[in-house]
C-alpha cells in the first residue's frame, strides 16, 4: 500500500496582502475618477452611489417596478429552470450518443446543425412562441446549457478505456451492461465538469435573454437603468449578476464535491 504524504503549501505574504491592496486601489480610483468629473456621472456611477442604490432597492420598487431581491429571484428561477432541464435532457442524450450508434446517428446531425447558432439568436422566435414570460427564457437558457451537457457526456463516454470494454465483453456483457457499468462511471468526471460549464452558459444566456425580452430580472434591471439613464442602476445590475452567478457557482461546486466524494475517494 502506498502512503501518501500531505504536501503543505504556504501562501507567500505577497499573495496575502497584495490582493487586498489591489482591490482597494481599484475601488478608490474608480470613486475618485467619477467624483472629480474625469468621467462624467452620466457615463459611470461612483461605487458609493451604487452602494446607496443597493440599500435603497431593497425597499423601493421605483423606478423599475420591483425590489432588488425580487429581480434576483426571478433570474435565479429562470436560470435553475433552464439549467435542470438542460441537465435532464443533455446528459442522458450525450451519454447515449457516446455509446449507442443509433442515438449518435439520429441525434448527432441535428445537434451539429443547432450547436453553432448562439442561443441568443433564438430570442426573436421565442418571443413569437412564448411571449416575454418565464417559459421563453427557460427555453433560451435550456438551449444554452444543453450544448456543454451533451458534449461533455459524449466525450466522457468516448474516453472509456477500451481495454475495460474488451474485458467486459469477454465476460459476455451486453451493450446495455457495458453502458451502465463501464461507460457511465467512466464519464462521470466529465459529466461533473459539465455541471459548472453548463451553469456558466445558462447564466450568460439568461442575462442576454433578460436584456432583450423581460419584464423582471437582473438583466431587465440593467436595461431599465439604460433606458432611464441611471448608470448606477446599470452598475448595480451588473454587480448583482456577477454576485448571484458566483453564489450559484459555489453551490454547484459544493454539490459536485459531495457527489464526487460519494462516488470515488
Amino acid at each position: 500500500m502506498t502512503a501518501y504524504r500531505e504536501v503543505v503549501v504556504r501562501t507567500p505574504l505577497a499573495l496575502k496582502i497584495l490582493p487586498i491592496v489591489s482591490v482597494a486601489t481599484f475601488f478608490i480610483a474608480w470613486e475618485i475618477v467619477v467624483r472629480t468629473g474625469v468621467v462624467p456621472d452620466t457615463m459611470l456611477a461612483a461605487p458609493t452611489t451604487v452602494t446607496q442604490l443597493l440599500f435603497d432597492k431593497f425597499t423601493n420598487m421605483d423606478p423599475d417596478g420591483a425590489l432588488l431581491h425580487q429581480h434576483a429571484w426571478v433570474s435565479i428561477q429562470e436560470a435553475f429552470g433552464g439549467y435542470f432541464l438542460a441537465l435532464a435532457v443533455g446528459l442522458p442524450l450525450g451519454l447515449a450518443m457516446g455509446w449507442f450508434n443509433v442515438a449518435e446517428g439520429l441525434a448527432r446531425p441535428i445537434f451539429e446543425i443547432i450547436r453553432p447558432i448562439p442561443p441568443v439568436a433564438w430570442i426573436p422566435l421565442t418571443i413569437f412562441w412564448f411571449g416575454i414570460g418565464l417559459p421563453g427564457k427557460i427555453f433560451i437558457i435550456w438551449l444554452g446549457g444543453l450544448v456543454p451537457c451533451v458534449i461533455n457526456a459524449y466525450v466522457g463516454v468516448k474516453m472509456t478505456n477500451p481495454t475495460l470494454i474488451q474485458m467486459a465483453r469477454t465476460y459476455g456483457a451486453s451493450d446495455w451492461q457495458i453502458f451502465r457499468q463501464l461507460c457511465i462511471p467512466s464519464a462521470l468526471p466529465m459529466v461533473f465538469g459539465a455541471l459548472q460549464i453548463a451553469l456558466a452558459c445558462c447564466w450568460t444566456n439568461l442575462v442576454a435573454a433578460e436584456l432583450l425580452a423581460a419584464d423582471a430580472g437582473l438583466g431587465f434591471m440593467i436595461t431599465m437603468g439604460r433606458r432611464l439613464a441611471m448608470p448606477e442602476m446599470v452598475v448595480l445590475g451588473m454587480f448583482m449578476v456577477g454576485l448571484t452567478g458566483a453564489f450559484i457557482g459555489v453551490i454547484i461546486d459544493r454539490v459536485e464535491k459531495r457527489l464526487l466524494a460519494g462516488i470515488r475517494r
Partner: protein
Amino acid sequence: MQNAARPRNKIEVCNLTKRFGELLVLNDISFSVAEGEFVAIVGPTGCGKTTFLNTLSCLLPASSGQILIDGTPANPKRHNISYVFQEPTCLPWRTVRENVAYGMEVKGRPRKEIDERLDHILDMVGLTQCANLYPNQISASMQQRIAVSRAFAVDPDLLLMDEPYGQLDVKLRFYLEDELVNLWRKLKSTVLFITHNIEEAVYVSERILVLSNKPTRIKAEVKVDLPRPRDFMDPEFVRIREHVTDLIRWW
C-alpha cells in the same frame, strides 16, 4: 499429444487464420486443449500472441478457421471465458472486492453465491485485508492479482492469460505463479497462458506451444510432465527449459 486420463477436448482450434489487411499474422493454426489442462504459449514479440487470444475470445473475428468450445463455436455470451489482459483492467470506481465480483455480476449469478465465492477466492489469494480499498490505493501487482482472481471467480471454461506477470519482479513473480497454479488446481479450470519467460512456462504449465515468427504457426509442442511443486534446479526441469530455449533460438 493427449493424456490418456483425459477423456475429452475442451477447446478445439481448427485451421485458425487471421490477417490484418495484407499482413498474415496467424497462419492456419490447429490444436486442441483437454479439459482442465494448463497450456503455456511462448513466441517472439509481435508474432501475434495477443491477436491469437483476441480471436479465441471473439474480440476479433477470425479471417478463417474455427474455434470450438465443448464442440460449439466459441461465444462469450454462451461460454464462460475469462481473459486476463496484458495491461491492468481494474475498474477504478469499484473496491477490490467489487472488482473481483465484476465477472460474476455480468453473468448474473445470484448475490448469495457471489458473496460466498468472493470470500473463498479473496481468502485464497490473500486479498481479504484490502478488500475494501480502491485500485488507486494498491500497487500494480495487486491490480494484476485482482484481474486473475476475477478471472477465476467466474469458474471459466477457458481462462486466457496474456503475460499477466510481465512487469513484475522475480520474487513476486514466483509467488504469483505458485498462487496461479494453486488456483488452477483447486478450481480445475482450463488455462491458456502466454509468456515471454521460458522458465515461467516450464514452471506453471503441463504443455508448451512454441510459436514461430510471422506468419505464425505452432513450431513445436513440448510436454512438461513434472511433479508439483516444481523445482527450478531439478535436472529434468533444466533439460526441458533448455530444450524450449533451443527451439526458440531459431526465431
